[in-house]
């Protein structure tokens, strides 16, 4: 019997990258993620983790947008640009999302990919840079390294508490409610993740925010004509060189969300 392998079609359009559930990452994907974080953390310039973590909180200025209409667009831009710096180090890497509503999370809490201490796992935490620490030394000494104090796993948000939020038809209503869930999880993780100035120095921050960004994406799919107030669209998302309008579509930014993805590369494409 002769087996004929048909050549793959030439890809003429750049494929999207897919952010995957951290619970479903295969070993090579997790190894690549850890490798990229390790290398990013070794860079002390504007390509590195320390610089990007600092944009959210300390050192000043603290650019993050909380409790405003820009909460979702600003953090989408933030993840997008940081993820590009990881891709500079390893093209296969995307930021995974941590589903804190899953049965696994409600039994064990934080995902093991971010808590396993073997092999110098960079996802367990990060150093807080000297400039951030010097500015943070006010009433309490600033920590040199992130730490977590997670609450009981059953206190994490439940799936049914997210479903009704995804059903909301108005963008600002959705944004307000999902930000409250976002705040809940920051405080649930505790430690430096509960502190705006230091939160992004912990790699779990990025997995949590990928989940929030994914929920916005799911909301957009559920309400394709809902949009957002036109007055928001032209607002700048400092310090990033884009506006809110640029963040509306994830696929225009080159990514989407899946639970699990695998890819077979044929003919070097």
């Amino acid at each position, binding site marked *: 019997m002769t087996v004929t392998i048909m050549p793959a079609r030439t890809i003429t359009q750049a494929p999207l990258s897919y952010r995957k559930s951290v619970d479903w990452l295969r070993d090579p994907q997790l190894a690549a993620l850890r490798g990229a974080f390790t290398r990013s953390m070794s860079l002390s310039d504007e390509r590195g983790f320390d610089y990007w973590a600092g944009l959210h*909180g*300390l050192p*000043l200025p*603290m650019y993050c947008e*909380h*409790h*405003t209409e820009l909460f979702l667009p600003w953090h989408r831009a933030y993840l997008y640009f940081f993820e590009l710096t990881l891709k500079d180090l390893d093209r296969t890497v995307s930021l995974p999302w941590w589903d804190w509503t899953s049965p696994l999370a409600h039994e064990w809490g934080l995902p093991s990919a971010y808590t396993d201490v073997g092999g110098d796992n960079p996802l367990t935490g990060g150093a807080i840079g000297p400039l951030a620490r010097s*500015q*943070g030394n*006010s*009433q*309490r000494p*600033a*920590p040199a390294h992130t*730490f977590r*104090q997670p*609450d009981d796993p059953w206190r994490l948000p439940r799936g049914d508490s997210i479903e009704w939020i995804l059903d909301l038809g108005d963008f600002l209503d959705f944004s*307000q*409610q999902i930000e*409250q869930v*976002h*705040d*809940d999880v*920051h*405080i649930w993780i*505790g*430690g*430096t*993740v*509960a*502190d*705006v*100035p*230091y939160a992004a120095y912990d790699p779990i921050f990025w997995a949590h925010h990928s989940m929030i960004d994914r929920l916005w994406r799911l909301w957009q799919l559920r309400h394709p004509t809902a949009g957002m107030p036109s007055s928001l669209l032209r*607002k700048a998302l*400092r310090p990033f060189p884009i506006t809110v309008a640029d963040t509306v579509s994830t696929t225009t930014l080159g990514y989407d969300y899946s639970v699990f993805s695998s890819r077979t590369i044929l003919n070097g494409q």
Partner: protein
Amino acid sequence: MTPVEFDLEMPPAVEGSFHRADITFYGIDHGGPSFRVHVFFNAPGATVETPRTPDEGYVGSFSVFGHGDCFGDEGHCDVRDPVTAFDRRPPHQLVPTTRVLVATEAVHQYTAAGHRSVHVTAITEVRPSALADADSAVGELSVNQVALHTYS
């Protein structure tokens, strides 16, 4: 920590008059450590240890991811208004925020039981972090006003 307590007028008990009820907290100060707020109806002695069940008057909770502290020079965290009509700078980061606690079930329950007003107790809880411990004297919840809005 001293809870915030106040009375809130309830809507008339007209069946089907609303399908959603929001308790909206306006003007919340978020300049300090992160905190949770637990809201109870008609439970004036409630504390952070009170079981969060409807039988105890529990309505719901919300969290506020706080700015942490002021890390700049003097005046850095003073909320400034626009200095001219042409001031295109974004609003100050510490403009007080709003939290919307969706409380449809509780409001239905209390209006159906004939309550024309309820006594609200809002208890603040702070979890340990780099900027706070559970006993942090961050002060009571600072909020300008609270409103109940229902929607049909």
